[in-house]
């Protein structure tokens, strides 16, 4: 069966209607629920297909820190811009316009720096192979993206290093569920992060915080299935990790990718934009690969890098990322902050909650 046929079968209107019926029935039984997802692609598809409008009012779907671009600290963007006068910087496109203290990659390019957007880290390697200048790849992304970074370092490329800003999802979930943070009854876990890490890693979180979780795919029917499955768990008083995306995810995840990650990266505490430092939530590059770690390779130059956080007055991206407010509750939303003139990171990326709310709201 071709992919489009499969999609059509999954999203058959009868499937959607049956899922919605089951959700309505459960909602009548369990009352108001708050379900958080932590994936920018989930938010994008939920809003694009108007899924919130199909759900009972009592079912609230809130957006968590699922956009890697949005959670990348300004300090790291500034650090890359600081190195841009002696290197070529490559970045994934989402990152290009995200504001930092000293501007953005886009602004730095207009000032004469060589910062290039790449689709894949392999495109960055091609640039390195054809240029005399050093290439630094700005390595953002969660566990879905970090294996690609790890895989290319194993090949020990010439003229190339990575500034690793890679982050891990499960520690952020634990942070969000800790007392005083967002009040949520269940989690829809990110489908593509989970292709790599599997579902097993979430099990301790369900036990510790007594919370139902379902790993969820990205078709409208997948998302509704995920919502149904967590509500069913709530109704039955279960707090488990279930897999609603079995066509792509195994309980143990992708072992080969995990092995490659472990070979190249170690886990460290890391800052997330809008959050305090989160324990064990970032990937640093192991000493064995320090020749390809931009932080080590340019250690002397970075000795002169000074960073002072200036903050964005009135910007509430931090609270949006933590699921504490909706984009519309920020005083800057639409009035001052828009995709053409973004104040915070969430308005820039096509997967940022503010950008999505602006575009489709």
């Amino acid at each position, binding site marked *: *069966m*071709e*992919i*489009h046929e*499969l999609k059509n*079968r*999954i999203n*058959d209107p*009868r*499937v959607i209607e*049956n*899922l919605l019926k089951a959700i309505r029935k459960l909602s009548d039984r369990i009352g108001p629920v708050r379900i958080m997802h932590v*994936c*920018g*692609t989930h938010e994008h598809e939920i809003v694009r297909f108007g899924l919130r409008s199909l759900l009972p009012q009592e079912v609230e779907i809130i957006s968590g820190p*699922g*956009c*890697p*671009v949005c959670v990348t600290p300004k300090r790291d963007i500034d650090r890359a811009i600081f190195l841009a006068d002696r290197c070529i910087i490559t970045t*994934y496109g*989402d990152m290009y316009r995200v504001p930092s203290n000293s501007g953005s990659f886009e602004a730095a390019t207009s000032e004469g720096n060589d910062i290039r957007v790449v*689709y*894949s*880290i*392999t*495109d960055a390697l091609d640039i390195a192979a054809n240029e005399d200048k050093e290439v630094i790849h700005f390595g*953002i*992304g*969660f566990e*879905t*993206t970090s*294996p*690609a970074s790890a*895989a290319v370092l*194993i090949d020990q490329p010439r003229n190339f290093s990575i500034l690793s800003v890679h982050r891990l999802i499960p520690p952020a979930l634990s942070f969000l569920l800790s007392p005083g943070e967002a009040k949520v009854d269940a989690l829809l876990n*990110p489908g*593509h*992060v989970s*292709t*790599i890490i599997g579902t097993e890693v979430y099990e301790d979180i369900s036990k510790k915080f007594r919370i139902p979780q379902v790993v969820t795919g990205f078709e409208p*029917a997948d998302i509704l*299935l995920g919502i149904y499955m967590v509500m069913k768990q709530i109704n039955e008083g279960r707090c488990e990790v279930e897999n*609603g995306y*079995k*066509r*792509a*995810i195994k309980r143990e995840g*992708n072992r*080969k*990718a995990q092995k*490659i990650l472990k070979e190249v990266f170690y886990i460290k505490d890391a800052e997330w934009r809008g959050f305090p430092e989160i324990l064990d939530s970032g990937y640093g590059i192991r000493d064995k690969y320090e020749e390809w770690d931009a932080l080590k390779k340019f250690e002397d130059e970075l000795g002169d890098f000074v960073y002072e956080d200036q903050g964005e007055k009135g910007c509430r991206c931090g609270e949006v990322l933590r699921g504490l407010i909706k984009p519309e509750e920020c005083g800057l939303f639409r009035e001052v902050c828009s995709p053409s003139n973004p104040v915070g990171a969430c308005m820039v*990326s096509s*997967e940022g909650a503010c950008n999505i709310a602006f575009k489709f709201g």
Partner: protein
Amino acid sequence: MCLAIPAKVIEVDKGVGKVDFGGVLRTVRLDLLEDVKSGDYVLVHVGFAIEKLDEEEAIECFKIWGAYGDTRA
């Protein structure tokens, strides 16, 4: 950002695959997967295949929600 697009593998050659995204062909790295064969469906993210897709599971998962086998009804 964590967007991954399904594609059909057309050719495999030393850790690199040619894949078909519904008409658009591109080469992708296969380092992260074991035993990828031509004809497999994979999810592609930033130029790397990150997982194989299991069609049977997809059908099985949604069977109870629709009237499968009776798609023209």
